[in-house]
Structures are given as C-alpha cells and as structure tokens.
C-alpha cells in the first residue's frame, strides 16, 4: 500500500536509531547492549554522516507496547538508560546529535532515506553544539509552611450560647486571611526572584539556556520547593567556571542549587523555538 509497506517486516524487524554522528568509532559502543538482546549496535552511513542503529523486533516497539512500557517504572527506566548509554558512548568518541527515545524505521533503506532528508538539520545541530556540553541546574527554596487561617494560634472565641459572634470577629478573621494571602504572595515573589537570579548568572556563562518543567511537589524532597529547573549549553572551556559560580550563588542566596553534567546536549540539538 504505502512505500514502506513493501519493506515492512518480511522478517518482523525494525531499525531503532539512537543518534547521528560524524565518524563514530565502532569500538566506542561495541560492548553496549542497546535496547534489545542478541542484536549488535551498528553504523548506518548516510552521506557524510553516520547513524548508530540496532535491529529490533518490530513487535516489541509498537505504540501499544510503549503505552504499557510507560506505565512501568522499571521497564521505562531500562529503556531510557539503554538509549542514553548508547548516545553518551557515541558522544564520547565523536560529535553526536541524539535522537529521542523510540525513533524507528522499517529497515535500513527507509532509515537512510529519512536521515538523508534531514542532513541539513543534523549539520546545523552539530555546528551549534560543537565544543559544548549541557549542564542541568535545579534550584530549591526552603519551604516555610503557610499556616491556614483555621490553624491560627489565636483561639476562636468560645461559643457564646448561640448568640452572635463577638463584635469584630469577622474582621479579625478577614485580617488573618489577608495576612496568609500576603505571606503566600511574598513567598511566591521571592521564589521567582531567586529563579531569575540563578538563571541570569548561568546565562552569562552559557551559550544558550532552556527552562525545563518544574518537578511537581511530590517529586521533590520534603521541605524543599523547586523554583528553577533549567539546562544550559556551556562551552567546554568555560565548564570549569560552573563550580565556582554555583558555590557563589549558594552563598549569596542561601538556596539549594543542584548542578548535573556534562550531558550530551540533548536539549540544544533541536531547533530553537
């Protein structure tokens, strides 16, 4: 029916593409398992570039299978790490553009054509990220619980024999509520300011920066509120500055600042929106 229908899985296999590289050395990833067993990772040459690929059982990589896989923490973790491992190993040996998890083709011919069509994007990404690494920065503010109006230390007036509340009780309640609201707003502004301060400082060192989604409170260690989850593209020769910068920011803001890296620049190979 379609062009690829012909090639589709006479042997039930599909081709998983991990990354696109410039002159990768096979030794760099030779020992890695990839995302399946019994099939070696290999190189797929297209024009001047090379993809790192692996032949997989198509039946193990359908959308249905992935939907189930994504509801299993361990399973998803295994695939994500396997993918990341290959990308990182490739990047250690040559300039590399990572592809996201689960990019699959019906065979080498299809993959080569699709990759060739994107050659310019790969070249641009390689150029943009050459000599750079990605560094993740997460900032946490200490959580100071805002008391709810009901839990205020001022005890409610004793119920006076089904009469009206004491004069001014309603006003006091409103004042308390207003106070809580004001504290909450102040805390929110403080968090925003903290995020801006740290982001600006890293932007100064970085060639580019991106905000990632903040982690939901359940994922963050108790007592902390994540106020910044960002990632930066930093030239290799400036990476040494990051440690000192992080230390200085910790000292001036008093906030917890976690830094991770160097990463293969996953977040900076796509087109900048």
């Amino acid at each position, binding site marked *: 029916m379609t062009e*690829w229908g012909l090639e589709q899985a006479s042997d039930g296999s*599909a081709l998983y*593409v991990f990354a696109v590289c*410039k002159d990768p050395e096979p030794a760099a990833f030779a020992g890695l398992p990839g995302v399946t067993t019994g099939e070696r990772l290999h190189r797929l040459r297209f024009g*001047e570039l090379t993809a790192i690929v692996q032949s997989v059982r*198509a039946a193990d*990589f*359908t*959308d249905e299978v*992935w939907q189930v896989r*994504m*509801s299993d*923490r*361990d399973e*998803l*973790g295994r695939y*994500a*790490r396997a993918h*990341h491992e290959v990308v*990182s190993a490739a*990047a*250690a040996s040559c*300039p*590399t553009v*990572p*592809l*996201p*998890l*689960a*990019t*699959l*083709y*019906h065979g080498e011919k*299809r993959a080569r054509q*699709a*990759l060739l069509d*994107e050659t310019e*994007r*790969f070249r641009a*990404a*390689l*150029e943009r*990220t*050459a*000599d750079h*690494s*990605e560094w993740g920065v997460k900032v946490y503010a200490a959580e100071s619980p805002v008391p709810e109006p009901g839990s205020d230390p001022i005890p409610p007036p004793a119920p006076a024999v089904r009469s009206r509340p004491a004069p001014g009780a309603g006003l006091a309640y409103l004042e308390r509520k207003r106070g809580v609201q004001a504290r909450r707003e102040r805390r929110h502004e403080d968090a925003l300011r903290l995020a801006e301060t740290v982001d600006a400082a890293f932007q100064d060192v970085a060639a580019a920066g991106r905000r990632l*989604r903040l982690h*939901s409170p*359940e*994922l963050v260690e108790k007592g902390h509120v994540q106020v910044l989850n960002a990632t930066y593209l930093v030239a290799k020769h400036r990476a040494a500055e990051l440690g000192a910068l992080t230390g200085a920011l910790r000292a001036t803001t008093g906030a917890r600042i976690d830094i*991770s890296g*160097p*990463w*293969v*620049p*996953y*977040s900076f*190979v*796509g087109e900048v929106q």
Partner: protein
Amino acid sequence: MTDLDLGRDAYPVPGPQNTNLADILERVLDKGIVIAGDIKIDLLDIELLTIRLRLFVASVDTAKKAGIDWWETDPALSSRAARNSLQDENRELRERLEALESKTDEASDRR
C-alpha cells in the same frame, strides 16, 4: 559543502554517572532532534509521566505499601481500569434508566 569544523577533541564528554531517572527522561523523552519515524509512537511527556507514576519517589512496591496505588485505576494508565470504568459507568446508567422507567411505569399504572 564546507566541512564542519569539528575536531576530535570537540565532542562533549558522556553524561554524568549515577544520574537519576528524572534527569535522563527529561532529556530522552522530548529533547534530541525529532525526526519522523515509520512507526508512530506517542510518548507521554515527562510531566504526565511524573504526575501519573510518581516515578522517582518510590518504586511501585514501596508506593503500594504506602497506599499509593491510584494508577491501577487511572484509565490513562491501565486498559483494564479503562474497561472497568466504562463498565461501571454503563452499569450505573442502566440502573438509573431502570429506576426512571419503573417510576414512569408506576405513574402510568396509577392513571
């Protein structure tokens, strides 16, 4: 075409060791150059994953012990749950319909 100026020492070093899964998923799920594959796969984005699975807080077993087992009945995560919720809704609707019909029957009997 001009050759890219990429020396052997120009590549970034591999990712940090012992990275947590959240950091990796944040990058491999929706970053990287996205090109159209032959097989269409809709990966949940990291936000949905973290919200629904609380992936990085606890393993499923630990979560279950703590009584966090809502994903088993989250229709988006379990086809069984989806089926159950449809069946439940169906049953409920049927019951309401029966109740309504019996009421109208009673009403017409009385006339």
